[in-house]
């Protein structure tokens, strides 16, 4: 890691830390308790940002998949791969925090409703995306196949949403414009915190993947020399 990179990295790390701490403080100390739902509503400040950033992560997968198929530059593939992993983790958290909130408020863990079902389909799609890679015979082929899934899967999202919305709807509508000032601030800081966390994780994951690739190449050349 060179000088400017490590400075950027430390800045990123510091900002993520400060924002996450600020977000925690705002969620638990600053934001008022919601009148009808009570304390459980605070999970909303994690649930919503996680959902948005997961979606952002999948959008990054989509764009970098296209770029990879066009330029065959492995850096796009690495970015798509790590972004998909983070997106799947964030979606998993969305699917866990959602039912925790829904049980006391709706009275049921799960409803087959538009946004819940879309998130579930999204989760399944990108798990499949990660599986394609591991089943491919060679790395480059796995990257190509995954890119195809990354494109097809993302294009499918609005169609899934549309069809499930017509099917059923129960999720609370977009609350953001009716949100009280202090609640909105808490939410926005939460979104900022998770955005930085996403960038930080993506940075780590891509660096790790690049290093793993280098090690593999080194090992191959060593093996060839020994022979």
């Amino acid at each position: 890691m060179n000088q400017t990179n490590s400075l950027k990295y430390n800045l990123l790390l510091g900002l993520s830390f400060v924002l996450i701490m600020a977000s925690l403080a705002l969620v638990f100390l600053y934001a008022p308790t919601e009148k009808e739902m009570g304390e459980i509503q605070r999970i909303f400040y994690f649930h919503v940002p996680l959902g948005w950033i997961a979606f952002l992560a999948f959008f990054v997968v989509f764009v970098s998949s296209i770029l990879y198929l066009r330029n065959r530059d492995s850096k796009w593939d690495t970015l798509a791969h790590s972004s998909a992993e983070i997106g799947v983790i964030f979606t998993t958290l969305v699917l866990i925090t959602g039912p925790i909130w829904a049980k006391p408020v709706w009275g049921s863990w799960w409803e087959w409703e538009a946004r819940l079902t879309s998130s579930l389909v999204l989760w399944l799609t990108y798990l499949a995306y990660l599986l394609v890679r591991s089943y491919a015979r060679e790395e480059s082929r796995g990257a190509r196949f995954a890119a195809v899934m990354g494109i097809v899967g993302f294009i499918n999202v609005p169609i899934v949403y549309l069809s499930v919305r017509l099917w059923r709807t129960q999720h609370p509508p977009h609350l953001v414009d009716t949100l009280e000032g202090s609640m909105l601030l808490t939410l926005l800081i939460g979104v900022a915190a998770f955005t930085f966390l996403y960038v930080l994780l993506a940075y780590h994951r891509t660096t790790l993947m690049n290093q793993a690739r280098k090690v593999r190449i080194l090992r191959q050349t060593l093996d060839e020399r020994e022979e």
Partner: protein
Amino acid sequence: MNKVFAILWKDILSELRAKEIAASVLFFAILVIVVFSFAFDPEDDTIGLVAPGVLWVAFTFAGVLGLNRMFAMEKEKGCLEGLMLCPVDRDIIYWGKMAGSFIFMIIVEVVVTPIFLVLFDLPLFMPELALIAVLATVGFVSVGTLFSALATNTRAKDVLLPILFFPIVIPVIICAVKASEVAFDGKPFGDMLSWLGIMGAFDVIFLVVSSLVFEFVIEE
């Protein structure tokens, strides 16, 4: 167009000679319907709830089976290399294979649907069902052909196709089930228009997208 037809004709001929896909897929679809009837135990009052689901689960599962064979047979006999050596664009291969899968699936549906309607005691003449079936089948084979080609080039080809295929075709399954429900209930045609619309949009979008990315899937 001639080239697409040549590939399609090749598939039809080899199927006519080997009778490898259609018969087994057909039998499988009927088995799924029978097994699900036992699983759900449909009575007079629940039949309307269960029937559309059973029909489309059967076609989805049978479709995966057939789609798996479409490229597996090319791979086994080394025909895929031959196809790729043909002086045609890769998307021609896609359209040809897609058309083949479409015809096979439609044949299966044409045979299985009347059996299903009899077993579930539903009216036999339902022209709307044909329209639903065509739209849903185009949706299935549009992404199915792409993923079938993809899956044959991997280590776990039999498992991978359903894993990729099911999450993507969920909108088609929802729409097909809902539209069939409207048809089985004898409600007016207008009630199913929005479902047909979504399926139509899915078909157009994925025919275009799949034909565009197909070359990346079969490239060696």
